[in-house]
């Protein structure tokens, strides 16, 4: 605004000198993948010492843009300018040596290596013959200097998610990164770990680095960002300064329209116990203890949320209830009948439905069409067959009805479902599961990877089922989602239920403590 008031030439000079204070400038970046334009003339820059949030929904092109900046992808068009010099990154090596460090959402760590081995990977400054003791000593000093507590000698597979993230950050600091990009850093952290991360980030910004935080969580932007750039469908829609940031505006920019969130419920949960788990224990895939003495019940017309960091027994819990995994001890009751040891087929007949974690692997068959996928559960029922043959006419009728009422967008009923978007896949899966009129619905990470609109639609479907009296077990790692939908919340930590709280008394910090394994008193 100041520049506008000045004569054109001075304004130009001012702009130029301003542009020199940028650590990074991305100009008109375009990147196309087969069938999609992931980035369309995107502009983005990072100043010294700032925390710059890159906000956008899944698929808006945030990760692609940052992968270009970190040298992983090459842009089709556009310029990358680092400290005023135009650069072409042929590989991540170039980006790292130019001071760009990226912490990926899915950590790029080698599990069978030690922390130190992971950190020095790709560093050509160290001697050819490795002296691990000395390297570990140096790393311990480095991590201490930044308040990032890690033990360089420990093996990565033994670390918690929060520790792995610290290793990733140390890795980049070790390589002398001036710009640190964090891709969805809080997705897998407990609230307490998130606070610690934010403190560390602020500390690093103070030391003059530029920090980019990729996120789709609005409250995080409010909490830490000095500036925010919003991406939508591959375009940079706006860049706002700290004092211009407000949630409604950000949401509107991100989605392109107003969103109304409401989750008022009209009915009270019933008193009938639909699902009961009594002291259930099982092993995980590694043959170690997966679930330990799990006891809880879910009533009709109730959403029971399971909170916790992924990998603490969520998958095992869903599989145990659905009969996909054997239990060692305890019993599972559905509507009072002991169903321990039932096969999935028997579970279906008991009125249990599952929306699994892996929707395109376990939930649906990627290479089969919509019809095939939708009749998977009831092809053997009277109505669907003629002797040993499937009555395709009836099947098609039913499927088109479902596709219409659940608003699944398909190009044809025969086309392989793997071509559908995540939101449509989940609608399709829910259509199949809900149409079996279940008494119990298990939903595992039902909105993972979906955009805001699809998330809202899935939430409405779940709440609709609750109104109809279905008991719902909702497993999610998104605390906001859990708190928004659930009537009661059970926290799963290291295979145990560490606490069960009623959602109207839920306090995010308390849940966080329970997630870290501190057992709380059972309210309710």
């Amino acid at each position, binding site marked *: 605004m100041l520049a506008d008031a000045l004569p054109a030439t001075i304004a130009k000079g001012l702009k130029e000198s301003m542009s020199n204070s940028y650590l990074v400038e991305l100009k008109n970046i375009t990147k196309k993948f087969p069938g999609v334009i992931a980035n369309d003339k995107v502009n983005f820059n990072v100043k010294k010492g700032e925390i710059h949030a890159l906000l956008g929904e899944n698929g808006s092109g945030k990760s692609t843009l940052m992968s270009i900046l970190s040298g992983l992808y090459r842009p089709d068009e556009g310029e990358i300018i680092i400290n005023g010099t135009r650069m072409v990154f042929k590989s991540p090596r170039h980006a790292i040596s130019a001071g760009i460090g990226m912490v990926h959402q899915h950590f790029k*760590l*080698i599990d069978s290596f030690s922390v130190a081995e992971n950190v020095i*990977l*790709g560093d050509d400054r*160290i001697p050819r013959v490795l002296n691990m003791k000395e390297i570990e000593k140096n790393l311990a000093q480095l991590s201490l200097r930044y308040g990032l507590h890690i033990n360089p000698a420990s093996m990565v597979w033994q670390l918690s998610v929060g520790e792995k993230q610290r290793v990733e950050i140390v890795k980049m600091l070790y390589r002398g990164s001036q710009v640190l990009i964090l891709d969805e850093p809080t997705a897998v952290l407990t609230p307490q770990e998130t606070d610690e991360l934010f403190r560390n980030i602020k500390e690093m910004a103070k030391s003059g680095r530029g920090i980019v935080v990729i996120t789709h969580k609005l409250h995080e932007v409010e909490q830490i960002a000095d500036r925010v750039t919003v991406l939508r469908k591959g375009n940079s829609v706006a860049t706002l300064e700290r004092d211009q940031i407000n949630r409604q505006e950000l949401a509107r920019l991100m989605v392109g329209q107003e969103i109304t969130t409401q989750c008022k419920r009209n009915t009270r949960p019933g008193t009938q116990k639909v699902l009961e788990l009594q002291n259930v224990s099982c092993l995980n895939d590694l043959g170690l203890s997966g679930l330990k003495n799990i006891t809880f019940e879910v009533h009709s017309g109730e959403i029971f949320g399971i909170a916790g960091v992924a990998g603490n027994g969520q998958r095992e819990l869903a599989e145990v209830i659905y009969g996909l995994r054997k239990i060692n001890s305890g019993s599972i009751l559905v509507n009072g009948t002991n169903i321990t040891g039932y096969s999935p087929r028997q579970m279906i007949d008991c009125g249990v439905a599952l929306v699994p974690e892996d929707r395109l692997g376990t939930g649906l068959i990627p290479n089969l069409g919509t019809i095939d996928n939708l009749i998977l559960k009831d092809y053997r029922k009277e109505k669907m067959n003629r002797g040993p043959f499937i009555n395709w006419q009836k099947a098609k009728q039913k499927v088109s009805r479902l596709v219409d009422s659940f608003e699944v967008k398909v190009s044809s009923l025969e086309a392989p479902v793997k071509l559908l978007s995540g939101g449509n896949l989940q609608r399709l899966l829910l259509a199949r599961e809900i149409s079996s009129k279940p008494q119990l619905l298990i939903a595992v990470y039902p909105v993972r990877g979906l955009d805001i609109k699809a998330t809202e639609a899935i939430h409405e479907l779940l709440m609709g089922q609750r109104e109809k009296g279905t008991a719902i077990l909702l497993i999610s790692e998104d605390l906001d989602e859990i708190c928004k939908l659930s009537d009661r919340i059970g926290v799963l930590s290291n295979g145990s239920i560490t606490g069960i709280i009623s959602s109207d008394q839920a306090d995010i910090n308390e849940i966080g403590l329970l997630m870290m394994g501190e057992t709380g008193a059972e309210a309710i």
Partner: protein
Amino acid sequence: MNHDIFIAILATAVTAGTPILYAALGEILTERAGILNLGVEGMMLVGAVCGFIIALNTANPWYGILIAMLAGGAVALIHALLTITLKANQVVSGLALTMFGTGLSGYIGKSYVGMPLPAPFHKIALPGLSNIPVIGPVFFNQDPMVYLSYILVAALWFLTFKTRSGLHLRAVGENPAAADSMGVNAFQIRYIYVVIGGMLAGIGGAYLSLYYVPSWMENITAGRGWIAVALVIFATWNPVNALWGSYLFGGIDALGFRLQTLNVNVSPYFLKMLPYIFTVVVLVLVTKRNMVKRIGSPQALGLPYDREER
């Protein structure tokens, strides 16, 4: 069984194990880089025939070894091109190359079958070391290629576990995306070690035609390439373990051979089956042990790496 025969069997075990050892060392490097090479048998055969022809014509086995190495490497380069650059299925490519190698070596070597080699490798007793009881005659009264394999085992162990290059090699096999994001050139490393692996397989093959037999006959390897592939699992991708493993297999090979000469009343066909039966048994036992101890194959073994994959 008297002492001399016992020593003789052990010494033969080392000789019989050496071609397997070379091939297994090569396969360890290749798999450490994340590429499964089932073409070892073919590369050994091509190495064996090329090495033999050159050694025959130059009357110098060292030239034979050199050319065998280059020939094995050349076949491996095809594997690298197919699996790394073109991202073809590694199993299919490897099987195809084994068949290709078998056919090619038979074709090239047709007129050389049964010809005697004028100058094969000879045993050289290492002064001092060869006088140690038992160990001396077994390990230190051998030919130069055996001695070279000792050095190679130590060198490769050091390279894999103690150097920067080894760290990068292992990283690429475990998680090429992680290695790439840290500036390690995953493609280049995979190419290098696939070719080196093929070179070592070629040497292993040439050892058969230049010392162990020493002559050329069709399918001279008789499945040793496959045993080498199995041995890599037995050795848990560690060059030092491959040494013992090879001698174990060599020992069974030698034992079968000995039993025949001692007129033991066992069908020679059964004796010939021994190393392969042993392979199956060992694989079952070792796989179980590895599962318990959680020693796994390199995580990215068999998976092509594509940087821009979404």
